[in-house]
């Protein structure tokens, strides 16, 4: 049986609502009315509870059916089995009744038939419910203009790429992130030297003092982010940091209409490894920087541990853009809160060698004149 999907509809005209990042309101494109997320959440509170309960019941029913050795008679068992085997789930659009096939981590999407934004509240049940959500502040238009701006000043970018490539897809996605609070504890031993030279008569006297240096301390971190989505490239997600976490809001699905959302499929334990490496690296550098006043310093023994103190689960706003050129896909990401835009671009070999020649030729001419 398809799970429950919720549309946030305008209480006045029942048209679908869309979250507008710039105003922080849910907008009705049909009647033009705006509603705060809190008011809509309150309005839909009962429906949400029902949807979440339905999702729980559906999971329990499926488990019971599986234990009893039979499936729901309303649907072809093969069809359901195939979809689940492929890691997909089937939902029903409450607006037009079409069946939405999404992967198991999808938490918000839009109906491909009627275009209505839909939220799947059951995905956020129990431990899957995020602690926080950072609402989108920047719109789709902002992301498109940021992409055009991003091309500017890239001297090795082929003009054909910026002229000919077309945006294949642009999606605003709430990406699941783990936020780790923790403390790195370091104890590092160093061997250091201090060298002094002075002239005494006809002799240069060089004095080298050797020191055993030890530093110990701790560095506390708050909310080191690590994305919990296998679909999102880790380096791309790292590159759009930082987010301003002072704007985090307690989770509410009222911020989600109009955007896509995933639930995590990489657990906190696995994600913490990334945060641990970053924390210990920073702690090492900070402790190293306290060893000053020496001519040379080299570490002889290092003990750096990162302890996790608190873990939060948050959905953070990311605009994902993809283009295709010369048979290759290029993916870009924009921080939906700060607008930081990042993505690898193709290097034009022609431009590369043209620039090499343009730099080398006048330099060679200048050297030829100087060495004549």
């Amino acid at each position, binding site marked *: 049986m398809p799970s429950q999907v919720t549309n946030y509809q305008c209480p006045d005209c029942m048209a679908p609502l869309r979250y507008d990042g710039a105003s922080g309101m849910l907008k009705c494109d049909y009647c033009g009315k705006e509603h705060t997320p809190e008011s809509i959440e309150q309005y839909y509170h009962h429906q949400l509870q029902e949807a979440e309960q339905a999702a729980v019941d559906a999971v329990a029913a499926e488990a019971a059916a599986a234990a009893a050795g039979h499936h729901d008679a309303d649907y072809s068992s093969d069809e359901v089995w195939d979809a689940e085997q492929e890691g997909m789930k089937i939902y029903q659009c409450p607006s037009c009744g079409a069946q939405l096939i999404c992967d198991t981590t999808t938490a918000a999407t839009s109906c491909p038939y009627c275009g209505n934004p839909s939220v799947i509240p059951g995905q956020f049940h129990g431990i899957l419910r995020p602690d926080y959500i950072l609402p989108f502040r920047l719109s789709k238009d902002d992301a498109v203009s940021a992409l055009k701006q991003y091309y500017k000043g890239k001297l090795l970018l082929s003009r054909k790429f910026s002229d000919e490539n077309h945006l294949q897809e642009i999606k605003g996605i709430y990406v699941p992130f783990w936020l780790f609070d923790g403390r790195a504890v370091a104890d590092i031993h160093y061997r250091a030297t201090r060298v002094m030279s002075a002239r005494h008569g006809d002799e240069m006297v*060089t004095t080298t003092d050797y020191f055993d240096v030890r530093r110990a301390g701790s560095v506390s971190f*708050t909310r080191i982010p690590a994305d919990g989505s296998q679909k999102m490239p880790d380096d791309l997600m790292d*590159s759009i940091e930082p987010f301003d976490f002072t704007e985090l809001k307690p989770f509410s699905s009222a911020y989600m209409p109009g955007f896509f959302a995933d639930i995590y499929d990489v657990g906190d334990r696995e994600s913490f490894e990334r945060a641990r490496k970053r924390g210990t690296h920073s702690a090492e550098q900070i402790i190293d920087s306290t060893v000053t006043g020496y001519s040379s310093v080299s570490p002889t023994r290092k003990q750096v541990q990162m302890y996790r103190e608190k873990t939060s689960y948050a959905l953070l706003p990311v605009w994902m853009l993809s283009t295709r050129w010369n048979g290759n896909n290029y993916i870009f990401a924009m921080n939906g809160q700060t607008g930081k835009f990042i993505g690898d671009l193709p290097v034009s070999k022609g431009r590369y060698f043209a620039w090499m020649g343009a730099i080398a030729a006048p330099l060679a001419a200048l050297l030829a004149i100087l060495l004549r």
Partner: protein
Amino acid sequence: MRNKLVTAILTVLMLLLLVPSKVLADTGDSGLPFYVSDVAEILSDGQRQDLESTAEKISSQYGCGVYIVTLDDYREYDSKSDMFSFAQDFYRSYQLGIGDSKSGILLLLSMADRDYSLVTYGSKAHYAFTDYGQRVIASEFLDDFRENEWYEGFSDYLSCCGDLLDRADRGEPLDVVYNEPSRMNSGLSLAVIIGVPLLISFFACEMMKRQMKPVSRQTGADEYIVPGGINLSLKRDVFLNRSVTRTLIRHEDRGSSGGSMGGTTVNSAGFSGHSGKF
């Protein structure tokens, strides 16, 4: 001043007595009839004659006297002057040099304390033997003299003097500022002209390329440090031991030799050069 003059005259007289008669030869308009005088007898007859012949050939070819004198101890002739002053007095007293400007270069060795002095005089010598050129000459013979290889050292001295006079003859005296690049051979110049710009442009293009691939994993978490969250609990610096090394500073250059600004430094007496130990 009077004392110096008397000393110089005495020196000349004594040297004339000491100089073996077999080395006396016609040396053009120089007041001293030899180019190589081995009073300290550190060369064999054959070696001395060979050097004499080379020195004579160079001197007559370029119109600039090239002289070698060895003494047991210059203080036997002048106990008050230093080596450089003694070499200048010697040059003047023997009226060394060729032509109206009395151009020449003299390498004088005093074996007792292993002193040497290199002096040049006259416009032609000053043009050919710049301060830098003199240091190049000294570096040619000093390594041989330190090994007591006297003939090899003098041969290198004469050969280097010949090269420098030849360069000066072509209007390209060896000097630190203007002539270093011209010492490069054409192959090396071509390599520099092509290689250096290529290298610079390669690095510039690689930097541009890096700008095209900015996506990378974060390695640190500095932005997430809690304000006031850095706590240094132990800071210990323990002195272990000390080592002391002493290096003797060489004083090869003394006298009127100039720095590295190029050209030739000439003192008020019209001499250029320097003295030192080998």
